[in-house]
């Protein structure tokens, strides 16, 4: 007899991880692309148990200081861009160095080593993401957005927006509006 099976690797992995984490009573949240957010502290014993248990399924825990630092850098940047009503006026390199208590050179090196993109690039993408949100959800004008995100001029914001998305802010807004209309009608 021959059985033909169909499986979803992604789902299988997620189920295994869920079972194992629950067995060790670790509070967690599964993120996409192989990330697990651990909300409590984990004892060394729990950690090594988890490592060996999931190792049997060919799942490895990648854990080191540097990748954790990258996550902290990202968190700091996102927090700076999204949570603050207005971006700090100091340079971002100073801000990051202050917040993480490390030299900016070291931060930037680790970041690009692990993400294959520069901090500056990451910041630009995040800022444009935020700009999108402000334009679409809060209905702000370009002048208001450029003030909030510390752009020197509307032209500069437009230029950067176009460089990142390939679209002018107004075309971008038109497309989002049309999409919404379409999904509402559907």
């Amino acid at each position: 007899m021959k059985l033909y099976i169909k499986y979803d690797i992604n789902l299988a992995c997620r189920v295994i991880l869920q079972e194992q984490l629950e067995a060790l009573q670790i509070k967690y949240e599964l993120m996409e692309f192989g990330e697990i957010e651990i909300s409590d502290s984990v004892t060394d014993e729990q950690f090594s148990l988890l490592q060996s248990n999931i190792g049997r399924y060919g799942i490895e825990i990648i854990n080191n200081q540097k990748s954790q630092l990258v996550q902290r850098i990202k968190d700091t940047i996102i927090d700076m861009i999204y949570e603050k009503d207005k971006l700090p006026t100091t340079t971002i390199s100073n801000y990051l160095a202050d917040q993480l208590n490390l030299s900016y050179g070291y931060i930037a090196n680790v970041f690009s080593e692990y993400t294959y993109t520069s901090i500056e690039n990451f910041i630009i993408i995040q800022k444009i993401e935020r700009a999108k949100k402000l334009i679409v959800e809060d209905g702000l004008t370009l002048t208001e957005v450029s003030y909030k995100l510390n752009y020197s001029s509307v032209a500069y914001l437009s230029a950067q927006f176009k460089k990142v998305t390939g679209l002018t802010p107004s075309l971008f807004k038109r497309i989002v509006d049309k999409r919404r209309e379409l999904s509402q009608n559907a």
Partner: protein
Amino acid sequence: MDTTHSQMNILLCDDDADDRLFFKEAMTELKVQNDLKVFENGSELMDYLHHPDTLLPHILFLDINMPCKSGLECLKEIREHAKFKNLVIAIYSTSNSEEDIEETFTNGANIFIKKPSDFSLLKKAIHHVLNINWQYHTDGLNKETFFLSL
């Protein structure tokens, strides 16, 4: 590409043999470890996507002007299915008229690439798309408003 992350499944659907060749060469030169599957027309692509054994791809590069089943038709059909919700669709077209950009974006495309007339630009574009796509996946950016026009 970052080898610590699972490799991406990438699809290309283009009826033009030269363009398929350029794309493959670009991917090879970028030395990315990715699985690229190539289709010559829309029906072939849709058959593959609907097949039960098919692994959900991460990115689809889709030409618009194709005989029989156009890219736009494929786009609309794909976006009707919930299971392809997270599939990033990159339009890969000779035209870059605002009408085409608007129409494909409104119908659910995420990226619009005008086929470049320079090979290095093609490499750059593919690299940028894979990179930014990865970023959108890992950094929890809002996919609702994820458009990119190159």
